[in-house]
């Protein structure tokens, strides 16, 4: 036997031994795999998982993908039977994209379900069954405004319709500041505008979402939505988005609002805390929020609770998974979670207060009604794809009606 053969056998033996050794470590408990988008897993998630590992002897194995690829990876893995034991998805109608009957365990009989607040239970339910453990928060996108800039510009009344909104923009522009920071480079953020406006259509014509979801209704022909989109072009043409807004990124939004050069921005209600973190002088109480005023809208579109954890129907470690979810649902762990997640609002379980941002109370008080936004209420809605079509209004001369027709065309193949 020559030296090469001896070396090869030694390496092979070492690899086999290390594999056996690795298995031996896990022999004391189960391994729970969790799939999620990178932006959805925060430090506190890892800390609680580590605490659980220590307590239970089970092991948590994270399978994190970049946010923009996660849905694709998840869909593919589920399709080939390699889905993680727990996988994150958006709550609400988005769950339907992953064939809930086939891939999601019914969690209705879990003890923590009885602690769910109404919006959490509604947002995690499908066909009468609870399919998610949800510890995020209901939130929505409205127009965040800087109270000091409004005062400086002489705006005494918060806009309540499109005309008063344009007046406010004009006054802000007159004092040399940019009325609205719009991150046009982030296609999904443009989509957020329209996603919030569909709440108005649903409020005016109940059953609109249901019609879209059973494919008996189209977005094309909805004059109010087309008008709202065309008004966005009007805002841009008037210079209210500033110069080159299509190059603005969402990542820059907190810094831009903290600079005091921009008066308004479409954000979620916990956003002021991010601004304050950058500029401590720009405290959260310096901001207010009102509903998107396009097409004289007064409704506030909200999410179905954000991101939730589904349990794979094919998991081999169901007991360990339930044990982990029960661990996360303990009041002390929920408290730790919401204390660390200042970006979240009210808690999904009624034992814990969570955080209710002032902007949330403000926008709710100015809204006639709140309801699900398109992202969580309309099947096969994709803000990025919608935003891509909306960019066409600003660079290629398409109209609001074209955008609505484009969304219909994009959704249609998913219905078969």
């Amino acid at each position, binding site marked *: 036997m020559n030296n090469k053969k001896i070396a090869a056998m030694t390496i092979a033996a070492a690899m086999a031994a290390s594999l056996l050794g690795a298995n031996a470590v896990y022999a004391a408990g189960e391994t729970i795999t969790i799939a999620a988008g990178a932006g959805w897993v925060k430090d506190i998630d890892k800390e609680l998982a580590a605490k659980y590992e220590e307590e239970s002897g089970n092991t948590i194995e994270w399978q994190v993908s970049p946010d923009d690829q996660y849905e694709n990876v998840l869909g593919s893995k589920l399709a080939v039977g390699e889905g993680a034991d727990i996988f994150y998805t958006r709550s609400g109608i988005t769950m339907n994209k992953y064939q809930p009957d086939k891939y999601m365990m019914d969690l209705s009989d879990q003890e923590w379900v009885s602690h769910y607040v109404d919006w959490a239970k509604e947002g995690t339910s499908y066909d009468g069954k609870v399919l998610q453990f949800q510890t995020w928060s209901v939130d929505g996108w409205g127009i965040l405004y800087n109270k000091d800039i409004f005062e400086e510009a002489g705006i005494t009344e918060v806009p309540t319709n499109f005309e008063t909104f344009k007046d406010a923009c004009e006054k802000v522009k007159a004092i040399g500041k940019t009325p609205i920071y719009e991150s046009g480079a982030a296609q999904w953020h443009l989509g957020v505008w329209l996603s919030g406006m569909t709440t108005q259509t649903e409020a005016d014509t109940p059953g609109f979402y249901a019609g879209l979801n059973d494919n008996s209704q189209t977005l094309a022909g909805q004059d109010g939505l087309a008008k709202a989109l065309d008004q966005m072009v009007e805002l841009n043409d008037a210079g209210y988005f500033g110069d*080159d807004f299509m190059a603005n990124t969402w990542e820059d939004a907190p810094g831009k609002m903290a600079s005091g050069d921009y008066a308004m921005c479409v954000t979620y209600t916990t956003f002021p805390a991010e601004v304050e973190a950058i500029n401590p002088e720009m405290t959260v109480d310096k901001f207010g929020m009102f509903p998107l005023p396009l097409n004289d809208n007064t409704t506030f579109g909200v999410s179905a609770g954000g991101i939730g954890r589904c349990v794979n129907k094919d998991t081999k470690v169901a007991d360990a998974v339930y044990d982990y979810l029960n661990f996360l649902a303990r009041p002390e762990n929920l408290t730790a979670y919401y204390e660390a997640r200042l970006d979240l609002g009210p808690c999904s379980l009624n034992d814990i207060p969570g955080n209710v941002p002032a902007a949330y109370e403000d926008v709710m008080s100015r809204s006639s009604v709140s309801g699900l936004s398109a992202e969580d209420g309309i099947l096969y809605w994709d803000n990025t794809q919608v935003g891509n079509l909306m960019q066409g209004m600003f660079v290629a001369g398409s109209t609001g009606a074209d955008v609505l027709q484009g969304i219909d065309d994009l959704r249609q193949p998913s219905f078969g």
Partner: protein
Amino acid sequence: MYKKKYYGLKFVVPAFILYTVLYIIPTIAGMIISFTDWNITRPGVHFVGIQNYINIFQSKGGPYLASISHTFEFTIITVILKTLLGLGLALLLNKGLKSRFVFRTIFFLPYALAPLIIGISFVSVLKPDGPFNTLLTAIGLERLTHSWLTEASTALGSTMAVEIWRMAGWNMMILLAGLQMIPEEYYEAASIDGATAGQKFRKITLPFLRPSLTTVIVLNTIHGLRVFDIIYSLTGGGPGGLTEVINTQVFKEFGLGRYGMANALNVVIFIITVVIALSMQKALRGKESNE
């Protein structure tokens, strides 16, 4: 005696198996899937014949025809400019210049960087307040400044410019190798006969360089038709789909879980690439053999 010249089966079979498993089977599987309506949002996979292909050529369900058009536009312009720029650099740095080795390295460097990294870097460079516009302003050309990646008139052109910048050095290297194969005696004889520089280029350089030019043109065409990463990182296909090419559309279709359509688009670009590349090679090689 010939037996020794052929590799034994034990050498061939592993490579064949690997190639079959990793390339041939997935390619055939992709083609089969392209005739189905496989969509992760619906249970079951059904045979739909050529419906996906019909949808592509009717742009039904996405801006497919626009993507194909942008892909051709990108390919034609980048092939011409990459080749011309590469040839210019190769002629410039072939001989004479003392620091030519340093310049060759500098021009080749962009090719050594990952296209995604280049794309991410150029997003900053080409921003309205980025270094490129700052430079233009500093030299008094402020009127030429643009929001390069987000204006309709400049978005696709900017992606082409970055691709040309990235690949010009690679073209230069291949053409340099071709230039150095040309015997110096031909140029000396031509000089004695009183040939001008232009005549020497047309009558000596170009004919000898034809094999190298064939290689770079065909490879540039394949690169152009299959472009993805540079566009994905620069514009993501936006704004408003103005820089959408076939492969960014394929990526989006996969993202939406429409595997049938994604594979159909893949087959379309595969067929277009093979047909164009083989035709070009045949045409260009044909000219070589005629000379």
